[in-house]
């Protein structure tokens, strides 16, 4: 594999950048692999990478219906944070933030992880109580998330509207200093490149149409639009469409799909230096390195696979944005889009083996981008050893057997 560095950049500049190697191969599909991962998004590619790095399993194929990183990995608002409520979630997501801190070096690609902090702007007393509870839970786990005063909120976000005489004045805030944003494509490409270098095969435009099982019920492989592939173990990592793919193995999961949308404005000068989350207004916004405002709001209220923005929801988010930042009222929006996210019954993700031997699943992701490194690493552990890693044991499917819910209010930022 060609290493990326200032020297390789200079060397390739001399040949007009025509000598760069392809970042990953496009090999022929083999008839059999040890492990097949369905879905080449962040979690699937990270799983492939950690299977090779931590467990020495390299006879792996990642099958992707569309193009690499084209699902929710390429559609999210790239927030990386760990201000959750449950002990299990704080440990899990904080481990992810720590992996992100090392990821550029580890993957030899600049993921542009910018730990610019996230500030929650609190405008109601119930939300203040909620976030105070979460800050205390974080403190117990050694994660950094703490309340700040109204003055401190305005010091960190100087362009925030003066709301002190409005219906919902700012009554406080909360901050996670280590929260940040990263470049989503670089994460998918970085994992793909390193997994490929370790021997993993990535097959794009390869749609899984069925999951083959032996008469005893074990998984024996998958059927694809390019022919059948045998595999001892199959992992479903298909954010949004898990219900449909799991049904190929007669597996029914307690998850529902929703449409979550986001939008970006035209680029403007740097004015917001932190990620701003306004749970009471129902909106979050950060400014990209290019100067675009990247914002989002609520989900569509009913279940959806539409992957497009919806005007009534967009209008609510824009209204909230203008209310909190009147300075943006004449900024134009450039693009808006939607992605299919999943919500498990208790709002915590599922990274687990399933009742079908040899079949594993990583699903229920709402804000799964922040969990890519640890989600991939714990899924790889679960696939390799057929038992959960201590960090994802709370996220096993068996918790539903006894309705042992892990209710998690920290999943959703905007409310």
């Amino acid at each position: 594999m060609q290493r990326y560095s200032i020297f390789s950049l200079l060397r390739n500049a001399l040949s007009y950048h025509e000598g760069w190697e392809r970042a990953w191969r496009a090999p022929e599909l083999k008839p059999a692999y040890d492990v097949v991962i369905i879905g080449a998004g962040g979690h699937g590619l990270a799983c492939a990478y950690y299977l090779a790095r931590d467990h020495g399993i390299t006879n792996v194929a990642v099958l992707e219906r569309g193009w690499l990183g084209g699902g929710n990995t390429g559609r999210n608002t790239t927030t990386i944070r760990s201000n959750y409520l449950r002990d299990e979630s704080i440990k899990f997501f904080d481990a992810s933030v720590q992996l992100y801190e090392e990821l550029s070096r580890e993957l030899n690609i600049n993921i542009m992880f910018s730990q610019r902090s996230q500030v929650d702007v609190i405008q109601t007393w119930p939300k203040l109580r909620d976030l105070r509870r979460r800050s205390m839970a974080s403190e117990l786990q050694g994660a950094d998330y703490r309340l700040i005063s109204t003055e401190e909120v305005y010091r960190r976000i100087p362009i925030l509207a003066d709301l002190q005489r409005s219906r919902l004045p700012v009554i406080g805030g909360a901050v996670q200093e280590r929260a940040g944003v990263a470049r989503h494509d670089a994460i998918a490409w970085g994992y793909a490149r390193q997994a490929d270098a370790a021997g993993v095969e990535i097959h794009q435009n390869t749609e899984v149409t069925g999951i083959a099982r032996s008469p005893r019920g074990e998984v024996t492989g998958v059927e694809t639009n390019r022919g059948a592939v045998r595999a001892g173990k199959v992992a479903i990592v298909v954010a949004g469409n898990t219900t449909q793919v799991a049904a190929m193995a007669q597996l029914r999961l307690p998850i529902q799909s929703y449409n979550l949308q986001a939008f970006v404005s035209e680029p403007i000068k740097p004015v917001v230096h932190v990620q701003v989350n306004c749970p009471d207004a129902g909106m979050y916004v950060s400014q990209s390195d290019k100067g675009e405002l990247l914002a989002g709001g609520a989900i569509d209220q009913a279940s959806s696979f539409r992957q497009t923005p919806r005007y009534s929801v967009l209008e609510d988010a824009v209204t909230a944005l203008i209310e909190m930042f009147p300075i943006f009222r004449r900024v134009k929006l450039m693009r808006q889009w939607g992605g299919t996210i999943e919500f498990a019954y208790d709002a915590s993700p599922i990274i687990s083996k399933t009742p079908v031997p040899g079949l594993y699943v990583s699903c229920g992701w709402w804000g799964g981008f922040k969990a890519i490194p640890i989600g991939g690493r714990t899924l790889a552990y679960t696939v390799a050893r057929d038992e959960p890693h201590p960090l994802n044991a709370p996220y096993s499917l068996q918790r539903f057997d006894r309705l042992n819910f892990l209710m998690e209010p920290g999943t959703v930022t905007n409310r």
Partner: protein
Amino acid sequence: MHLVPCPWCGERHESEFAYAGEKKSPRPLDAGSLADDVWIDYVIGRANPRGVTREKWWHVRGCGLMFSIERDTRSHEFVAGSAEAPR
């Protein structure tokens, strides 16, 4: 703008309605005698189909009627004439 066809009021703006989940089979009367997995599937199981599905909608900021209707989860379009309200 998205209009929801309420069986009582006719087409009204979506913001007047609350989505109340998939329409499920009636709640079993003898829940205590069911096998655990059957009961748990009734409580938390979801069909979550990619296509037409029957759902409950509540005209909460309108006439207050709770009714069921078919909708396509790929396009969000309601199936004309599919609304059913309890008598």
